[in-house]
């Protein structure tokens, strides 16, 4: 019966324009069973993504092409359960990781790769994005710090790492909270003059980086634009508007 109702939904044609769950039809007033079960399956996949792990070996192998040192770092949250309940711990580096930072000199940018809430997102998207972004950064003579792979990390851990490496700007690429249609969304947060204790207004965020969302080409362009503006104006955050598409008057 639900199949039948679904077929007569006049909104079917609009489904080509969005991944949103439109035109599902009704059984009575409710969602047809097929869609109800599809939703449950997507939720199950997202739950699984939350508990996925950073593929540090695979990632490190892929990052070799950039000829940069790679640091393996870990937050103070020793496992996922702790990570979910204690975000404060996910924002700080553990002792062993802090010690690793002391050996490096002043640099322009540190690129940090962290699992966040979906290691799956990072495992799948990092190479595609960096293959476009890093050459852009090098083309304007920006000096890159070692690439940092962080387990059980949250966004603000980039303040500790940027500060520890004396980088002028930190860029963290991190798995976002998985949604139903996207368990593989990666976010990018950039902070000029990173120092522990900063909050969201000091950062610029570009979200939903994945092939079916903001694709690598647009994402790399956007990040590169914001980084250049941040260096030009020596700031990031709410005062650094994304004016790449300016008003026409």
């Amino acid at each position, binding site marked *: 019966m639900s199949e039948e109702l679904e077929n007569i939904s006049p909104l079917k044609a609009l489904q080509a324009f969005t991944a949103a769950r439109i035109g599902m039809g009704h059984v009575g007033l409710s969602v047809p069973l097929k869609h109800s079960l599809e939703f449950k399956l997507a*939720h199950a996949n997202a739950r699984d993504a939350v508990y996925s792990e950073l593929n540090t070996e695979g990632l490190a192998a892929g990052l070799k092409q950039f000829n940069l040192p790679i640091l393996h770092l870990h937050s103070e949250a020793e496992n996922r359960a702790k990570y979910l309940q204690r975000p404060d711990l996910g924002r700080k580096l553990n002792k062993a990781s802090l010690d690793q930072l002391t050996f490096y000199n002043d640099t322009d940018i540190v690129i940090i790769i962290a699992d966040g809430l979906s290691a799956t997102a990072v495992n799948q998207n990092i190479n595609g994005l960096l293959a476009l972004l890093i050459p852009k950064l090098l083309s304007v003579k920006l000096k890159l710090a070692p690439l940092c792979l962080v387990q059980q990390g949250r966004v603000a851990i980039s303040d500790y790492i940027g500060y520890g490496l004396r980088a002028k700007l930190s860029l963290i690429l991190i798995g976002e909270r998985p*949604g139903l249609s996207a368990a593989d969304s990666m976010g990018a947060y950039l902070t000029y003059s990173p120092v522990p204790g900063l909050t969201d*207004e000091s950062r610029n965020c570009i979200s939903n980086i994945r092939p079916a969302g903001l694709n690598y080409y647009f994402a790399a362009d956007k990040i590169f634009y914001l980084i250049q503006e941040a260096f030009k104006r020596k700031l990031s955050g709410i005062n650094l508007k994304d004016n790449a598409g300016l008003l026409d008057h």
Partner: protein
Amino acid sequence: MAYKHTIGSKVYQFNDLKTLLAKASPYRSGDELATVCAESYQERVVAQITLADVPLKVFLNEAIIPYEKDEITRLIIDDHDSEAFQAISSLTVGGFRDWLLSNETDTFLLKKTAPGITPEMAAAVSKLMRNQDLIAVAKKCGVITRFRNTIGLKGHFSTRLQPNHPTDDRKGIAASIIDGLLSGSGDAVIGINPATDSPAAVMNLLRMIDTLRQQFDIPTQSCVLSHITTTLELANKNAPVDLCFQSIGGTEQTNRSFGINLALIEEAYQATLALNRGTIGNNVMYFETGQGSSLSANAHHGVDQQTCEARAYAVARKFNPLLVNTVVGFIGPEYLYDGKQIIRAALEDHFCGKLLGLPMGVDVCYTNHAEADQDDMDNLLTLLGVAGCNFVMGIPGSDDIMLNYQSTSFHDALYLRKVLGLKHAPEFEQWLQKQGIVDDNGDILQVGLGHKLLADKFY
């Protein structure tokens, strides 16, 4: 001032009002993260027993965040209406709870008293109330607002049509808007969370919804939920801004972390009012809040998250909003761990907001790292419908593909209207009837391919 209570041989001491409120708060993960919550079940109830005996007048003299340090405390104290307070001035927090529940306290009296109630009083009394008390009192409160239609009438219930798209694609957004309108969604607002906060992108979306609204003469309002500075810039350029949106918190420092303060909100409020776009009313602000934002910004001053949330309502009521939406389950399990905590928080927020005179809606939602699912949301939605919530979200299939969380769907609103007999905003319902989307009883109809909304290319 310290508060003491003895149970058997055990003496509990609470050093100040802030501590007493925190310890009396029903358990939630955020208060534990902030290390402000009670350390045992007994201590929590003892704190509630102690709080019940505190006179409401104390709240006017003991600021939980110092007056000198916080502009929201100053707002609360300076704007307090002592005449409205008269009706409850002799009560304790416990007495206030009984007063709220008594049959003599009706919609009219609650409305008259609202300006005399501070957010801390509302938070305090909520901590003594069970879920059913929160529902029973909220249902008695009536808060009605207007822009192009009337929201919050008894027996009515509205939805924000939330047609987000991960890349702000016009056709993608339009497709969700059409699905929503054909499901009867969108009488609170058609509100898009933009993926990009650039003025040009926001302008583009504002123009698209405005074209649609004018073309079909829809009695509703639109909003692109950009940062207030972006909206202000656009309003000053005479963009079609119906509602000015901003996320707000309950401490000055929280708002600083959002890049705002009261003066900035005032400036944007005046700029939006000046556009004069409302037809039957001039409630032009749309605020979003949510427990945990102050802790998240490390700006809570040792105040529990529910009390911080109630203080955000002081900010909201200063600007006569059309809509206030507590986005209850968005923030994650470190603040509200599971379905039980999310449901409790939503009922508290809805109650406190209504008590303070705000047009409360709730984003009935959860994220995929919280211990919650659709069954919890069904429970909460039904409870809020009973409590007289002004509006909830309407999202295709509950799945926001831009913000990556689950909220209420177009279908959910149909369910709630049916089981509780709730109507749309009246002006919007008339429009739906004219369009052949609902019948004379307000029940949804299946439209055919030839429907105007499907045939027309407004995007």
